């Protein structure tokens, strides 16, 4: 499993036959391929560029000439208001809420998920596969199904309007994927290592904590990254469980900001752009784990 991200990034192997066929295809297809790819990339980037540049415009500019690309003149107040002006309080509070929820829920998922995956991977006990299937089941159904009773449950637990009330269910929803990705990884660690650790006096937990987890760092990074993206972008659960502006996460904040300032498009665009920066920065650093994790889970079928 650990080799898969590497496979994904490996340059395609070359051999004489392949080179010949590539020559045949590239003679016809090289330019056309670039044309298609550039066109698609353009479609992807237009909304992003529109938002980034729109944030530097005034509403007058946006309305009078929506097709113009560059702002004229460049206006910085929209962004500065969001980052340290009079919209900054909302933005930073929402960022903090998102961070708190992400930290708690990802921490819980990775901790509990790796404990469970360890048991499923390396211990023999009756009912193991049935129990594992129960977790796999969580991957197979639409999570929206649980949302109404979840609201009732969280309310009964007294966690409505509490960030913990969002973090706990989100950790639970991320568990299946975590367990399913970690189990084969934990399995692939040689039994000899476990024997050696035991001879040196390690308990089961000692082996898990001191030997297995350090070896599993790449896999732990992968599941963390996947859980972070899921939690960070979650919308429906926070929408239901959080009931005041001081608890909103970034996606909720962005939506409410766009309603509140519906006549001030430039400001909405600036807020949206600043709100997407953390995700983009994170993507830039964690792309490998993200792609590797998604494909290792899915390509096996």
């Amino acid at each position: 499993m650990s080799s898969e991200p590497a496979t994904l990034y490996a340059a395609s192997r070359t051999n004489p036959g392949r080179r010949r066929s590539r020559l045949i295809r590239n003679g016809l297809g090289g330019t056309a391929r670039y044309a298609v790819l550039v066109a698609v990339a353009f479609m992807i980037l237009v909304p992003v560029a529109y938002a980034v540049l729109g944030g530097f415009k005034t509403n007058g500019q946006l309305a009078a000439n929506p097709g113009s690309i560059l702002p004229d003149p460049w206006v910085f107040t929209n962004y500065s208001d969001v980052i340290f002006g009079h919209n900054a309080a909302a933005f930073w509070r929402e960022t903090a809420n998102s961070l708190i929820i992400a930290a708690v829920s990802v921490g819980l998922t990775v901790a509990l998920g790796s404990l469970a995956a360890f048991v499923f991977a390396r211990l023999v006990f009756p009912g193991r596969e049935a129990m594992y299937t129960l977790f796999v089941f969580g991957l197979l159904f639409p999570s929206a199904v649980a949302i109404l009773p979840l609201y009732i449950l969280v309310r009964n637990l007294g966690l409505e309007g509490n960030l913990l009330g969002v973090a706990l269910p989100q950790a639970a929803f991320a568990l299946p994927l975590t367990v399913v990705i970690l189990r084969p990884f934990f399995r692939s660690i040689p039994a000899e290592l476990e024997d050696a650790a035991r001879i040196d006096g390690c308990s089961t937990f000692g082996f898990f904590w001191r030997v297995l987890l350090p070896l599993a760092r790449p896999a732990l990074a992968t599941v963390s990254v996947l859980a972070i993206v899921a939690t960070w972008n979650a919308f429906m659960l926070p929408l239901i469980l959080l009931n005041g502006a001081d608890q909103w996460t970034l996606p909720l904040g962005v939506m409410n900001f766009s309603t509140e300032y519906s006549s001030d498009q430039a400001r909405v665009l600036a807020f949206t752009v600043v709100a997407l920066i953390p995700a983009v920065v994170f993507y830039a650093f964690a792309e490998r784990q993200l792609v590797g994790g998604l494909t290792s889970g899915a390509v096996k079928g």
Partner: protein
Amino acid sequence: MTAARARPRGRPRLPTRLVTVGLFLLPALALYGLFVLFPIVQAAHYSLFKWNGLQPLTDFVGLDNYVKAFNDKGFRTAVSNNLLIIVLSLAIQIPFALWLAVLLNRNFPGRAVFRLIFFLPYVLSEAIAGIVFSLMLRPEALVDTGLTTIGLGGLIQDWLGDTNIVMLTLFFIISWKYFGFHMILLLAGLQGIPHEIEEAARIDGADNLAVFRHITLPLLGPTLRVSVFLSMIGALQLFDMVWVTTGGGPLNATNTMAIAMFKAGFTKSQMGYGSALAVILFLFGLVVALAYQRFVLRRDVEGAVTAYNG
């Protein structure tokens, strides 16, 4: 290779191991059971009551909520909208993602950049994507102006306001966000296919299309099925993007099962009815999951050659 083989000396016996299993497994099981499994069971339970979510659960109505759902025109629209998105995703989005994956499955300058760009929308939240698109799609905003500029002004529509168009607009936005995800999966699948097999087919005289049809596509089967499955489950629970861009309107034209469920539960305080809609959504998901399981199990018995990396 697995831990299932005979245990060497020095490892704990079964009773000790069961205690370990309990200690390791219990926290995860408790969290998962409480916040995932229990609510699903509760949905089935609530669905048999007329209930506003506050009073005691006493007004048992049997299957009335389900009957009501099937007679609810808004909910029927929701179901057909979810199915429409599934059909469009399978007919357009996944083939498109596959096409791009094939284009990217070669070594050429700029390949990594394209992959990075195509996958970018996946990490953005649907709320953010939805808001930017709804601003772009407002009448006489960027999209309309752009179309006029390139001489296609005749194509302009009321993108998010016309009940005949709005689902297609939504499908476009959803595809914008998710085709890169499917492309990445399929690209990884393509890279798992040994070049030697394609080369052998070419030496036997197969042209590009024949190689794709008879070699690449069958060997890509497992990945393609995962992609199809994830796409269907995603389409079934479509909520965020709709809520942010149209809120289910205009005139229920973009209603989905999840939107209907949310509105029943939280704007109309019909928790019982909303739970019945949740159970129906669950049953749709179950059908998809069972079909997937059957299909995959059957295929995996047929040919071990399709296995990727073990």
